[in-house]
């Protein structure tokens, strides 16, 4: 059991140092050089933020302008069509994405949070294997997504699991891809729960399991949800690993989780964007907007949940 984090006493010390420095700076007249540096630094920060926002805005605005003629109901209700691109839609791809991402959420929340709870609350950090696990999880976050695709093909589609080219295989592959993000975010969130909460609960006679379930996890929930939101956002836009584990470009029947071919939005959009006919490129732009809408509606639930718990904890 790891109760004393060892790091806690450092915080007050840092806070005191910070307060002292702030007070000193008020009473020491700043030189013109300092002021210039101050302005420059702020300008650099604004530039950085502007760059990020500009890129995002450019993509969204371009997609809207280009895709506007096809932002109709057919885009959602119709399946793909090569012969009639002007009436084609993304129905099967939307359903495929919902299956795949739904599966990702169901898998990463329990597994990711479980791993984080073990590493933060149970693991003895003086043991070498726990340190190896920690370092490896951090390294996994930097592995290119296509490698997870190859892994998925060898171990999930074929090999030990042999699920075949179905949505469940895509779901598991993407889960492995984003799991490190969830674990890292959940660990940070659990770490941020004040130790006094744990000590209080244990002092009143609660078991460690009761302490974690009733006090640590509810407090860490907003942070965990942030990790889930980030992970889902990454998973929903992935196409490379899914191409390897069987996402197709043309399927007119609705997919299910364990049976039959499936497609997902990014694969479909990528395919349409590369076609020579204008109708397909308009369709691809409209698909981008559609994907954004699907992503936002999936995430807004998690965001609502996070805000709900943040408010509850603040009280």
């Amino acid at each position, binding site marked *: 059991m790891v109760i004393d984090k060892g790091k806690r006493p450092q915080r007050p010390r840092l806070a005191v140092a910070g307060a002292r420095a702030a007070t000193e700076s008020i009473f020491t007249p700043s030189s013109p050089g300092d002021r210039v540096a101050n302005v420059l630094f702020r300008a650099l920060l604004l530039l950085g933020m502007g760059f990020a926002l500009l890129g995002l805005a450019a993509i969204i605005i371009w997609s809207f302008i280009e895709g506007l003629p096809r932002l109709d109901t057919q885009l959602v209700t119709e*399946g793909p069509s090569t012969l009639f691109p002007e009436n084609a839609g993304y129905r099967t791809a939307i359903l495929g994405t919902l299956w795949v991402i*739904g599966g990702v959420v169901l898998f990463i*929340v329990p597994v990711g949070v479980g791993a984080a709870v073990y590493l933060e609350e149970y693991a003895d950090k003086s043991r070498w294997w726990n340190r190896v696990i920690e370092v490896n999880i951090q390294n996994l976050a930097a592995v290119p997504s296509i490698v997870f695709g190859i892994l998925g093909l060898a171990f999930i589609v074929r090999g030990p699991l042999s699920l075949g080219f179905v949505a469940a295989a895509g779901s598991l592959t993407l889960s492995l891809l984003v799991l490190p993000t969830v674990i890292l975010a959940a660990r940070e969130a659990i770490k941020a729960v004040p130790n006094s909460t744990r000590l209080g609960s244990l002092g009143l006679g609660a078991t460690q399991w009761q302490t974690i*379930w009733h006090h640590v996890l509810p407090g860490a929930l907003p942070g965990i949800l942030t990790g889930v939101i980030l992970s889902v956002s990454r998973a929903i836009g992935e196409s490379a690993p899914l191409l390897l584990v069987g996402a*197709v*470009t*043309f399927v007119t029947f609705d997919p299910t989780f364990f049976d039959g*071919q499936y497609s997902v939005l990014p694969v479909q959009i990528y*395919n349409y964007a590369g076609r020579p006919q204008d109708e397909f490129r308009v369709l691809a732009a409209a698909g981008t907007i559609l994907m954004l809408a699907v992503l936002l509606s999936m995430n807004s639930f998690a965001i609502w949940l996070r805000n709900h718990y943040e408010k509850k904890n603040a009280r």
Partner: protein
Amino acid sequence: MISKKWLQVVGVAGAVPFILTACGGNGAEEGGGEGGSDLSGTISIDGSSTVGPLSEAAAELFMEANSDVRVSVAQSGTGGGFEKFCNGETDMNDASREIGEDEIEACEGNGIAFEDVQVANDALAIVVNPENPLECITVDQASQIWNEGSTVTTWGDVDGLDVGDLSDEDITLYGPGSSSGTFDYFTEAVNGEEGVIRNDYTDIGEDDQAAIVGVEGDAGAMAYIPYSYFTEAGDAVKPLQIDNGEGCVAPTLENVQNGSYAPLGRGLYVYASDVALERPEAVAFMNFYIENQALISEAAGFVPLTEEQMATSTEQIESLTN
């Protein structure tokens, strides 16, 4: 009191696809009454992204007539497709090249016999202004003009090219945008690698007609266009014969279809396995593909098969089913 909340979250997230599936209806079943065949089953196709649109068009037409058969088309590339095909995971593979030695071995190792059934022809024409005296160009000369880092600016700069009075004339180049299949094919056939090309030509995007208009109005111009555009252009532009080391070959329908117009003409194939063709719906699909190839080729912008090629393809399908 977290447990109930969690159950709700999990419940809602899990239920969304079910609800949508229920609301979405099913495209394959909508045409239920009209599809007058009793074929059913699934057919999975993977492979080349060049041939993909052809197979998608074929699948779409086939499913209109046979509403209980489910055909899906993936495009993980000719090589990626063969890997799955020879592993017995797909029924057919779209290919814009012949199957390789390694791939043949993989197929044999898994007891999969196959035929390369040709479904269409693909060709490009290099065109110049009718005033240009040039009749024939070698692949090397074309590459000198079009390759990345090319220093050719006038017709006289090209080694061994006799263009008479035009040798001081600037070459104006027109080519399609990098997202087009024509671009991919030309760069690979002429410059040796897909996507490699000089970057100071006039990019006409996807409007191949613009290249014809441009070449028509400029004595020094040159462009490469899909075969179907050049046949429609008539006398507005002059197609060059291509010398690939075996003499000059003109881009005629016959030369494209018999394979002598190389490397700018090629066949597009669907590899079908004997294992898949044990199923009646797969046989029906392949036969449907060949019977309707003219319509399918036109929809996807390729050169249709000759009657002879059609007969060969039909024979190949038959040989696999016996």
